[in-house]
């Protein structure tokens, strides 16, 4: 029993870490640009498939390094051409546009790579279990958690200590003032969007190694990220981090006692948080509410 519980908590943490990575990208874009990026799952899938395509040439490690920046470039181009014209308008429009983009990504990946699921082979060193007692902690899962932790740490350091990061945080609070201080807001939004998509691409590569690839996987992974953001509080990246881990562990623990409800628990958690603390765990009142 204890081992089962431990297994599911670990599992939940790992899944939660994955949600965190995806939700942080969404959250970055939402906070600065007020855009709910429905195509985030689509970018994730594209990142995964890019990794799948280049793995035979550069290996898994090469793909891990190359695929996220490539995805970010696609994201940057998308932002420049399609999303930029919508900043001044009601958030409804960017929502609808990215919603349409998600369709195009899903259908496009199916067209290029086929509807059949694609496995991605991970290096042998990551594929084996680390201990026989705790068979479930494979090298790959540990590697996933370490990668996510590293990515989150880098993101938070960048936001905290670099000029760009400080501008992004300032823009989240009051974009108009940042603009009045002479910062190129358009550029800021583009870079911020690209950073968010970079995280989506990285999630895609990590997901590909664990789950394999399917054109439809993006839509399924999008909803937990939404819930992570709502639970953590819109406007707070730390909140998103907390929310993602929380729903991951909650669904992991629930899987022990009531497997059928392991996904439903996320929604229950969200309802409870909204009832008790409508702004989300770390959200501030008045921030985009």
């Amino acid at each position, binding site marked *: 029993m204890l081992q089962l519980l431990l297994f599911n908590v670990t599992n939940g943490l790992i899944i939660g870490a994955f949600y965190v990575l995806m939700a942080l990208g969404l959250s970055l874009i939402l906070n600065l640009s007020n855009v709910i990026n429905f195509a985030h799952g689509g970018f994730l899938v594209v990142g995964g498939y890019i990794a799948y395509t280049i793995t035979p040439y550069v290996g898994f490690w090469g793909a891990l390094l190359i695929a996220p920046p490539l995805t970010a470039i696609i994201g940057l181009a998308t932002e420049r051409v399609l999303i930029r014209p919508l900043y001044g308008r009601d958030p409804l429009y960017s929502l*609808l546009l990215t919603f349409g983009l998600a*369709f195009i990504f899903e259908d496009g990946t199916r067209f290029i790579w086929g509807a059949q699921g694609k496995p991605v082979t991970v290096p042998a060193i990551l594929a084996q279990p680390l201990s026989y007692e705790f068979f479930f902690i494979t090298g790959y899962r540990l590697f996933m958690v370490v990668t996510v932790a590293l990515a989150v740490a880098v993101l938070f350091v960048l936001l905290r200590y670099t000029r760009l990061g400080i501008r992004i945080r300032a823009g989240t609070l009051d974009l108009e003032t940042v603009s009045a201080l002479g910062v190129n807001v358009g550029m800021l939004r583009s870079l911020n969007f690209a950073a968010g998509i970079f995280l989506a691409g990285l999630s895609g590569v990590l997901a590909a190694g664990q789950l394999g690839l399917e054109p439809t996987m993006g839509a399924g992974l999008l909803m937990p990220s939404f819930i992570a953001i709502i639970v953590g509080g819109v406007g707070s990246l730390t909140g998103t981090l907390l929310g993602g881990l929380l729903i991951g562990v909650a669904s992991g623990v629930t899987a022990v006692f009531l497997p059928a409800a392991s996904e439903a628990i996320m929604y229950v958690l969200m309802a409870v948080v909204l009832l008790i603390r409508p702004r989300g765990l770390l959200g501030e009142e008045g921030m985009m509410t």
Partner: protein
Amino acid sequence: MIENDTGRKLAVLVCIWAALLLAPYWMPPLGGYTALGTRVLILGLAAMSVNFLLGFTGVLSFGHAAYFGLGAYGAGLSLKYLAPSTPISLLMGMLLGGLAGAILGMLIVRRRGVYFAMVTIAFGQVFYYIAFQWSSLTGGDDGLRGFSRQPLDLGFFSIDILSNADNFYFFVLFCFAIVVAVMGFILRSPFGRTMLAIRENERRARFLGIPVERHIWIVFTASCFFMGFAGALYALLNNFADPKGLHFSQSGDFVMMAVMGGMRSFWGPLLGAAVFVVLQDYLSSVTVNWMSFVGLLFVLVVLFFPRGLLGVVRRKLVS
């Protein structure tokens, strides 16, 4: 000038209702079929319900398909287990959708803007998830089957709406007319004016002493009732209820219909639904990549026709 305007409005109304009443006669020669017309009418009603909230109160719900789907399941379950009666099934569907909306509405009305949209999406998915998982009741992924709409029993005679597609179309049109009349009545009432005030300037409305949250909750709930009703009709049309009808991608379609037709106008969403349904019907018959084309349609409408078809027409008329 004002008389002229009223005259034009009346003429447009007459045209709309004439086109709707005569649809079973002019659609087939143009290559359509009556069931397609019925679908346009029902999805149009759903899009108008979404727009009742979005276009007239300025509140974006991106999870309205949930209440549509609940209406469908309510009607289906009622026909299957409760009573073989079409009116009762419509009532049950409407109640299920509306009451769910009323309860969830209380949780979410205090949120605004993108936050509201996100919360409605997430809560909408709850029902999708339930319909998907609770397969002993709902049939799960395969959908709810094993029921069919029943003849209307009016006491002295009964109308066969099951095998006669035209009869069913007129029945749906009758229901549609009632709901649309209720919507129009609400919008013309002082309450409807208050909705517009909230849309135009929420802060000012609040300063005027309007209980904004309560108003938004009422509008949200009303639109969920309309949505449930439309969903119930949809279940009767297909004799089938599908978990996909609850999914957020269906919500996106409804919002798209409203935007494409013209959010600020009463009839716009119906026009949007007509274009959307016919286009989707056509695309899915000619290409397997119809999803890309629908996605492209979203992108193009947002970038080039954000005011929708009626918005463009209206602008032309003004200038």
